């Protein structure tokens, strides 16, 4: 007679540090992305400490100077230090990107889960409204919102947030529809729990994986949208340092004589979006159980 011993002891819990190390080992590109995002966040939020110059102060003695030890990335047509403007621009990008992604993401999360849970007419109305908003490309929708409410940081955030809501809601709803049929949701209903408790305690935590991935990708999309709107003159306004705005006007006018005015803000946008996308892809892989065990 043989005896099978079943080890039902809980798996050892990994510390955050161990989880991070594991993520870094398994996702080198994602780690690179995370490093870029962290650098961007640190520089953006401690711009006052890092930036060598006031980003809005004109210096007519240093107009369109090429990169030098005094101005590492050169100066623009007003003599403003490009490095300082890029550092402060990271803050603008992060504020717009993060706020739009988080507000848009959470609004989409609530609508998506609510739509899936209640079904019926509620689901129909929310989904058809989402269809209407999603019929327009993000930038077109954002342009329309800015055209109505005018330029400025708050309006740009609103302009980018609105088109993100149905995108998030649609993805979250599809996951929530599966979760709604789970026995534990039926059990919660049988116990007499209310809709809010079931949604918040039992459904939302189980759609967090796709939600987090969506939100991460939204940050990149929002930064690009902000840069596009600013480039078109509809986003933040001079002299606020913003990467898209830095590509407008002077950058075009001096493209052949002072190319650094266009190159460095362009590189900053590229690195920020690349970093966020790489990190988002790695998060998806790390959170997907099928991919996680490979």
């Amino acid at each position: 007679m043989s005896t099978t011993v079943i080890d039902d002891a809980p798996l050892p819990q990994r510390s955050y540090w161990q989880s991070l190390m594991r993520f870094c080992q398994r996702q080198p590109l994602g780690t690179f992305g995370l490093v870029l995002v962290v650098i961007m966040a640190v520089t953006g939020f401690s711009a006052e400490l890092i930036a060598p110059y006031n980003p809005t102060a004109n210096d007519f003695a240093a107009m369109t100077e090429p990169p030098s030890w005094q101005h590492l990335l050169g100066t623009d047509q007003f003599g403003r230090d490009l490095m300082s403007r890029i550092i402060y621009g990271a803050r603008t990008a992060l504020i717009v990107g993060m706020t739009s992604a988080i507000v848009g993401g959470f609004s989409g999360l609530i609508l998506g889960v609510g739509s899936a849970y209640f079904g019926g007419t509620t689901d129909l109305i929310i989904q058809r409204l989402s269809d209407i908003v999603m019929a327009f490309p993000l930038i077109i929708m954002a342009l329309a919102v800015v055209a109505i409410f005018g330029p400025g940081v708050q309006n740009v955030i609103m302009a980018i947030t609105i088109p993100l809501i149905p995108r998030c809601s649609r993805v979250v709803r599809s996951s929530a529809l599966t979760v709604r049929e789970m026995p534990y949701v039926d059990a919660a209903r049988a116990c007499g729990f209310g809709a809010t408790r079931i949604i918040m305690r039992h459904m939302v935590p189980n759609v967090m994986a796709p939600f987090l991935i969506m939100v991460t990708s939204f940050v990149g999309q929002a930064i690009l949208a902000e840069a596009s709107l600013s480039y078109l003159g509809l986003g933040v306004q001079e002299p606020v340092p913003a990467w898209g705005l830095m590509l407008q006007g002077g950058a075009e006018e001096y493209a052949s004589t002072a190319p650094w005015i266009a190159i460095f803000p362009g590189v900053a946008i590229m690195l920020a979006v690349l970093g966020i996308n790489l990190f988002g892809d790695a998060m998806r892989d790390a959170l997907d159980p099928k991919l996680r065990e490979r």
Partner: protein
Amino acid sequence: MRSWFLKAGLAASFALALSLSLTLSGQAETPKRGGILTYVIPADGGPSLDGHKETTFAVLHATAPFYSVMVRVNPDNPSSTSDFVCDLCTEIPKPTDNGLTYTFKIRPGVKFHDGTPLTAHDVAASWRRIVSPPPGVSSARANNFVMVDKIEDPDDTTFVITLKFDTLSFMPALADPYAYIYSKAILDKDQHWYEKNIMGSGPFKFVKFEIGQSIEGVRNPDYYHPGQPYLDGFKAIFAPKESVRLDAIRADRAAVEFRSMPPSARDQLIKLLGDKITVQESDWNCGNVLTPNNARPPFDDVRVRKALFLAIDQWKGAQALAKIAVVKTVGGIVFPGSPFAATKEELEKLPGYWPDIEKSRAEARRLLKEAGQENLTFEMLNRNVDQPYGIVGTWLVDEFSKVGMHVTQRVVPTGPWLDAMRRGDFAVALEANCQNVVNPVADSGRYLPHDLYPENFAYHKDPVQVEIYNKMLHETDPVKARVLMRDFENQTIGVGAHQLMVTWWYRIVPMRSYVKGWKISPSHYLNQDLANIWLDQ
């Protein structure tokens, strides 16, 4: 006294002409006939084709070659502020009846492009429409003719204008380049016909117009100025984007843009094309105006408005901005090339022009403190046109920050920008004052209160300013008028601090070197009928 002033004007114009950085070549060359001139217009096109109604250069640059005018700035000396010559008339008349009656003789044998003869009746019908338009018709510059009492056309060749009072502003106003002579027969049938159609007596006949794309004309063989026009025809392409216009000239798909290009574009073209590019430059009868909303707190307090002006270092700023924008000269409310313009010494007494900027900013801080506005925060309304609004706006925001003001910009397209100013929905606005013929007395009327000059958006009340202006309008002695102009300027900028002129613009017109005969003027509205242009190809 008037002749003395005319001489002074001519001398100033001569000095101005000398100061122009002209690279004119071929002045003594014999014009060649033939060829099609292609040029770009930096706009989408105007709201209509009617010169009497419109104010934008986009209409004028597209339609001026099709029309004649009565009097014009001398096309061979367009930089002059006082050299007027006849176009349709035979001679500039000496006024009679104590300077109140001007009797013009109309050139005989002039024909409209449809073959009908142009007579004094057509001239009178057109001028009546400009001076006192019939109901439902708008005339953009009717305000310039408040001195006109009546217009008469006793026969086919005589055209008489009688004034209510003699004034120095009449003759420059008469040389309005938008004052096209239309056919009376057409106007009698439909006063709005010219809004959508073209039919004049100018050097070129209309061929076709594609909205927002291009307009084309062909030589008028019956043109009344002997030998002109030299070109077989022209094609004007509407191109609002600067990069497109630059590329068009670089690739020789267009020969010129007559408005102005920024210094960087000029430098690029010279670097790329060398002597294939000729550049003409001139002070421009256009400038930015800083307009605080005098009716809205805290700008209803003259101390706050003065502090706003005192924060600005115009002398240093204009010098630096000239490297990156179409601005250059510091001036008061009168075009700097005019004998009526303030001298540097006169300007330096006004807030916004003090030579010692530290002292000026210290006074600004003191005034703000006294007004309880030490941390003044406001939004400046600006137009989304980079050259030079965007650049001047960005510069001003930094200047204001130097006295502790926190300023953001609301940059909007032209429509909402005008709309916000017309509704009074702004704290401070950056606007512009662009005029055609240099006419100091008439031009300075735009600084009068809103109820007298509806397109003034300072929304101020100032009876003293109005009184000075009325005296100046009726003054026929140029020396006394100049003194009154200084009083008016001081009341506008100094005492009332209603509005401030910030940097006059500077015209830079790069063109293909084969384009000859055209001479730059202080206004992009002048000398645009293309009759004297020829191609050295």
